[in-house]
């Protein structure tokens, strides 16, 4: 019962967990589909970012979309200034 409640919380996007919008256990198992390198959760855009190839993958309704075609290419300058660069988010918090 407790687990169901936890999963309901997760699905509604409230529970969160360490991995940001997705549960930590899932975040631990996911990598970039193209480079197989780790993904970084970006809180500003609510997406998973693969720094290795500069692509961000959306999280829709609590479900990460890791199909290469769904990925958005990150512009390099944008990546640094607004698209949730690691340093930026550090300053903001």
């Amino acid at each position: 019962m407790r687990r169901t409640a936890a999963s309901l919380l997760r699905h509604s996007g409230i529970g969160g967990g360490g991995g940001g919008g997705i549960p930590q256990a899932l975040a631990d198992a996911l990598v970039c589909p193209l480079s197989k390198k780790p993904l970084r959760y970006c809180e500003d855009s609510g997406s998973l970012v693969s720094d290795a190839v500069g692509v961000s993958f959306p999280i829709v309704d609590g479900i990460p979309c890791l199909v290469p075609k769904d990925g958005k290419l990150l512009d390099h300058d944008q990546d640094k200034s607004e698209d949730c660069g690691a340093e930026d988010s550090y300053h903001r918090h």
Partner: protein
Amino acid sequence: MATGLAAATARRRLLHLPRHRWAYLSSSAATTEGLDGGDGSGGGRVKIFDRDLKRRHRDRAAWAMGETDALADAVADNLLDRLEDCRKAFPSALCLGGSAGAVRRSLRGRGGIEKLIMMDMSADMVRKWREMENATDDGLETHFVVGDEEYLPIKESSQDTVISCLGLHWTNDLPGAMIQCRLALKPDGLFLAAILGGETLKELRIACTIAQMEREGGISPRMSPLAQVRDAGNLLTRAGFTLPGVDVDRYTVKYNSALELVEHLRAMGETNALFQRNPILKKDTALATAAIYQSMFGLEDGTVPATFQVIYMTGWKEHPSQQKAKRRGSATVSFSDLQKQFGSNQN
């Protein structure tokens, strides 16, 4: 290489067979094996299936499918039976597309799975699974991901088992997809897959050919190439799995008419997604196909049978604890000496 060539030939032959806008099932096993075999790099340069179209098919299947599907459930049940044959438990599992919903229904605590990741190309399908998941309450931790089998987004050595039920036959690069599955497995992890084999829907193939010959004076490819049983073992070995095991099962499903069969294929998301498909299917050709199907294969009780051949593949990721053959030429005693030693005792 001889097998690669044979597979390539088999594929060419199949490609010239009829395919329908409503037809359907395919497997890239023979296909990719043959075409990519030459350079061994895979890489999906040869595109046989339209993966975007397949994704839309699966979106459609998400709302067209029923609560249960007898065929998918039977295949999933048979596939999961294999988990019970292992003494090992598989705490973390990855379940890939196709009939993963049926796998989830049939799991019932088998294999000691504690954490399950369900993945499909279609976001609608994944959402549907999540709705179904909320209705079940068996304490299994389930996660959902939208992902492509050809670009598996799963970390290396993170899963105890990878299960794919009736999904992998739509990949352009089947060996590549299987290699990615192997990488995602922990050492001594289990790979379980069910794909459709070449005998599948043979009645429909025949009916399509005859109807097209009759109505259109020629045939166009309507059905995708499917893996043959002999390819499955090669595939497992090529993808680097140890202790490979292949077995085949045949299901005959009875329908009231050929049109109902097509509806079922749509609900399973198994309609034709070949790049070279003919987008037009004339109404009278379709009806003629149904009529020919009925007259050639119809049973006495008025139903029409359809054959589904399912190839089950089992493979393990390498681990030092597994038994294996000694290296060639590593023997220290010759067979003739053995015969001298033991053969003489018998005489």
